[in-house]
């Protein structure tokens, strides 16, 4: 990503990097804790009984997605430009190797695990597309804070995807390397094709973050495995934090709700591939 040149910098990078050094350490300290939680899945013999399917039965259409998550595209004056090219990564994801047939066979808690992994993969791919679009100069000037946001958020989504896939592996199921095709095809691809600047990209990212958080919140209500609930619970707040910073960057109040909603949660009927 190209960083926008700044004539006036009221704070040094060294100062802020120093401030965040401890936080980086904290990030790494949280991983062992997560691995411990994942080990619990293994010993619990994750159930596969279909109780989960009712979790997020909902509209899989683009209209439903948009209505559920704020319909941000409706008022945006986005003009098509280079986004389509930038989206090439997400259009040809590693999902070609995804195990969609197997994923479709999963029921119960594991169906939600697969859905979660596919949403995380989609987030990783979408941020990658954004980074590539920025590098290609399709988004205009890109502020440095946006660069670090995109790269850090992408890294964390990659960690989340790995966590969910570890659950699948522990349950002797194939990993999900594909993305949520339902969301990608009906929402992300059309929207990304119209993204011409950082603001448009941030809005799209916010929708993805809200959707992931809502899905986890819904999952917490139906997952049977305590370790599954714990895994979702440690990830959902992180997606909410991504959303808070994106809201702030977009000039919107960063903590809009006293209670986070499940509106926009994805159903396990979403296609993965």
């Amino acid at each position: 990503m190209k960083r926008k040149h700044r004539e006036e910098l009221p704070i040094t990078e060294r100062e802020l990097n120093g401030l965040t050094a401890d936080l980086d350490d904290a990030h790494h300290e949280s991983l062992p804790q997560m691995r411990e939680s994942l080990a619990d899945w293994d010993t619990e013999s994750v159930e596969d009984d279909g109780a989960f399917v009712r979790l997020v039965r909902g509209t899989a259409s683009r209209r439903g997605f948009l209505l559920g998550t704020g319909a941000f595209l409706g008022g945006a004056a986005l003009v098509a430009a280079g986004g389509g090219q930038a989206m090439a990564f997400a259009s040809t994801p590693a999902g070609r190797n995804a195990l969609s047939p197997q994923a479709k066979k999963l029921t119960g808690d594991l169906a939600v695990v697969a859905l979660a992994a596919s949403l995380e993969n989609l987030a990783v791919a979408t941020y990658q597309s954004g980074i590539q679009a920025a590098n290609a100069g399709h988004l205009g000037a890109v502020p440095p804070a946006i660069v670090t946001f995109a790269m850090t958020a992408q890294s964390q989504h990659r960690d989340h995807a790995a966590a969910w896939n570890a659950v699948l592996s522990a349950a002797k199921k194939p990993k999900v390397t594909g993305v949520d095709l339902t969301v990608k095809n009906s929402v992300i691809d059309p929207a990304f094709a119209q993204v011409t600047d950082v603001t448009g990209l941030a809005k799209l990212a916010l929708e993805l973050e809200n959707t992931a958080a809502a899905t986890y919140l819904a999952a917490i209500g139906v997952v049977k495995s305590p370790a599954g609930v714990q895994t979702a619970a440690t990830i959902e707040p992180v997606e909410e934090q991504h959303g808070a910073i994106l809201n702030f960057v977009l000039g919107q109040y960063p903590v809009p709700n006293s209670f986070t909603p499940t509106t926009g949660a994805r159903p396990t009927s979403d296609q993965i591939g």
Partner: protein
Amino acid sequence: MSIDDRQLTELIEQSQDTHSDAMRQSRESLPDLVEIGRAARADGEVDTTPSGVVRPVVLGGGALAAAGLGAAFTALLATPAFATASKDVQILQTAASIENLAVATYQTALTLDFIGGASANPVVKAFAMKTMSQHADHAMAFNAAVAQLGGKQQHQPDPTLLNVVNQAKAGLTGPGPVVDLAIELENDAAATYVKDVSALSNKDARNTTASIMGVEAQHAAILYAVKALLAGGAAGLIALPPNVAQLPAAAGSVGFPNSFYPTQGARPATEGASK
């Protein structure tokens, strides 16, 4: 300071509309608690305290004393069943106690000129006010859940965190220490609820708690960003909308330091439970 007060007010009003929708959603998860709570309660009296009241909490060394050993003893005698309150009720009471403390802490912070007075950053002041209101909503929700499970509502602050706040009070001489304290409280609250959701046996209690944990995490994220900007001498960049082009690179990631929310700061389930 580049801020349009009218725009900020409008944003908060929009946020309140959304908040009302979210409140309705939270309330929807509460009714099912009633029957389960009745079944879970083997004996004892039902607390009939009206729900939805967040009572003022006095911060200071005498807060617990003010509550009074005598009063506490009377309460204990009046509600013997709660000595053996269910685990879920204890968890929810502790959660309410954390929220009560948060409300009181923000309330106190807003009395400081550099947080709620003339010299305050308008965005910081608005954030403190809105956050205090959201914590009050959380306290109400937890107490409503407690009541519906047949427990005694908790209107006192978490005693351990109260000590933390009281010890910090003398050092609250500028925005930085206040933000530090707020981060600690928000992180502890979020960590507690992250841990609680897998410990709660009642599904509706779990859903209510889950819908709150992310909000505390969001508070922490914004506070981390504010802390970084204050520490870097860039208080002028704390604005809504911000001058994104001027924000330092680290500001983009300082708000979410962990891929997985840590639970090390989680408060014990019984810490704020009614005695």
